[in-house]
């Protein structure tokens, strides 16, 4: 299926495979791993697809643009795009339009969000997810408390969105005091190292940690334990993603709140791709529903069916 003008392969559903170019992020952490494996497992040859998977090198946007261009030049049938960075895609998307290749955004969106440039975006909502964490925090600390934020690398759009969601919900609450924010680069090891120092510089007077991914939350938990405190009691830790290790930790009470950022939307994606190839209209933004887990019980219940 090398992208001729009027493409009849997908409608006929015959022996020719539909070529899907997946401009992906690549190994980044548990969540990403689950998400991309899910997409790869969905678009199989049995399902009638040839998936071309192009992960970014070093999370570098440039390598994604190169891959995107290459897919356009090659003339794939559909492009799935998980952009590492939101900005800077206009040119590439316009070229895809000129080549009449539909583009579906997976997970991350683009900035500015010009819906005419792509068909649809399928993703959980970062803003909503971190708002959910913030709402839990507000209800959990009615008398207020000191909190600390463990961020991803400075400047990444996910980090900015999750910060926005949190800040918008917490800023107006008087009791919650932000004692600081540091990056731990999504990493458990760095989070542990950062947070042990943060605890010391604040004389252990921190009640809440907002970790922007599970890995960093787990690192913070270790730091809390080593400081002789009890996570979940002295320091409550909330994380985003909902990977298995995080839920296990939640079940043990080491984490206090986990907001899922649901990676498993391959099925939805497949449906949408088929709709698009059949020329049907689709919504410009399809939000993937995500759960939250606020207690060990909830985690224990969810664990057996957890796939990632």
């Amino acid at each position: 299926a090398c992208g001729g003008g009027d493409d009849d392969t997908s409608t006929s559903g015959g022996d020719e495979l539909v070529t899907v170019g997946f401009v992906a992020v690549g190994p980044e952490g548990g969540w990403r791993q689950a998400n991309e494996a899910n997409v790869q497992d969905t678009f199989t040859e049995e399902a009638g697809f040839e998936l071309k998977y192009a992960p970014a090198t070093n999370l570098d946007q440039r390598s994604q643009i190169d891959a995107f261009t290459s897919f356009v030049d090659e003339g794939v049938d559909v492009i799935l795009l998980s952009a590492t960075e939101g900005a800077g895609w206009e040119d590439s998307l316009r070229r895809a339009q000129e080549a009449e290749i539909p583009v579906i955004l997976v997970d991350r969106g683009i900035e500015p969000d010009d819906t005419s440039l792509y068909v649809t975006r399928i993703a959980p909502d970062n803003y909503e997810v971190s708002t959910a964490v913030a709402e839990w925090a507000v209800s959990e600390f009615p008398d207020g408390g000191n909190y600390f934020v463990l961020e991803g690398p400075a400047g990444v759009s996910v980090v900015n969105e999750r910060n926005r969601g949190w800040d918008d919900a917490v800023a107006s609450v008087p009791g919650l005091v932000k004692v600081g924010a540091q990056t731990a680069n999504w990493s458990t090891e760095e989070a542990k190292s950062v947070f042990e120092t943060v605890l010391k510089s604040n004389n252990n007077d921190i009640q809440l940690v907002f970790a922007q991914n599970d890995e960093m939350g787990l690192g913070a938990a270790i730091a809390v334990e080593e400081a002789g405190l009890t996570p979940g009691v002295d320091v409550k830790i909330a994380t985003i993603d909902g990977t298995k290790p995080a839920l296990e930790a939640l079940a043990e009470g080491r984490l206090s709140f986990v907001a899922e950022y649901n990676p498993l939307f391959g099925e939805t994606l497949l449906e949408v791709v088929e709709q698009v190839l059949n020329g049907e209209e689709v919504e410009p933004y399809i939000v993937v529903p995500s759960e939250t887990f606020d207690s060990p019980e909830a985690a224990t219940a969810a664990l057996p069916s957890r796939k990632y």
Partner: protein
Amino acid sequence: MTVTTRPPTGSAPGTAPSLAERLGARLSARLSALPTVAALLIFVGMIIYGEAAYGRIVQFNTLSNLLVNNSHLIILAVGLTFVILTGGIDLSVGAVIAFSSVAGVMLSNAGWHPVAAVLVMVLIGSVLGLISGVLIQYFGVQPFIATLATMFLARGLASMLSTVPERLADDSAIRELATQLKIIDGDKVNDLVITPGVIAAIVIVVLGFLVLHRTRFGRTVYAIGGSEQSATLMGLPVPATKLGIYVISGTLAGIAAVVYTSRLGSAQNITGIGWELDAIAAVVIGGTLLTGGTGFVLGSVVGALVLGLMNVLITRDGGIRPEMTTIITGGILLVFVILQRVLAARRRATQG
């Protein structure tokens, strides 16, 4: 004086040099160009292989995009060629791009005239290059460390300016620099296009070549790479030249920032992480020795294109597991340098 000097001719002892031997001597004089030629051959081989295996490589859009997508890398590689030829290294170029582009976009959005903003972007590169150069030349800091410091500095300054993507206004004239000029308008996107960025890259390559081979400055660059001490004792302007190459490298990084930013229409503090390694790899693939003294700008261009083509081929294949990509990149780099070594050794042996 019956016996005059008989310089060793490299010929078999005791025989007058035959035509074949003279040819051998000629070739041996060009020995340093061999790795570059090898790179070029491998590049052509890759194109042929790609076309055979995946198709749609030898067509207007793929080839012109190879240039468009890698024009900034080519510009960086030219700058690094100068630095590496002297036996130095510049790790700061990626971070310089980040700082320069974030600053440029912010200035432009703040209402600066686009020409002024572009000039500042280039100048930021020059100044950061100058800082590296001064640290290296006047304070004896080792290039690796000095440019590492500049790298941290530039990255830090970029992050302090902004940690969110800074978007160029839609009507900014800087975007014009990425206008695609269609030379041949083919079917759909299959056009032969060229951008001002590509033109800039080509001009810089030509200038780089001329400077290295046709100016005393360029010859001094090579001499320093051969032996800095000798160059000094030969009365060459070593300090000025060393300063000069870091300024050149910085300036070219600034220009690369303009080219890349205009294409993307936005700038960010995390742009360019690891690009210095890409540029160094391009230079090395192109046959320049990291110890300095031998290499060519044109080789670096081939190196940059080889890297770009490699990415295209990996994407085209599409079936490579993500964890394998870096292994493959490393593997190809390794094959390259080993092949060049073997070729050079073979040539040296047959020449003997």
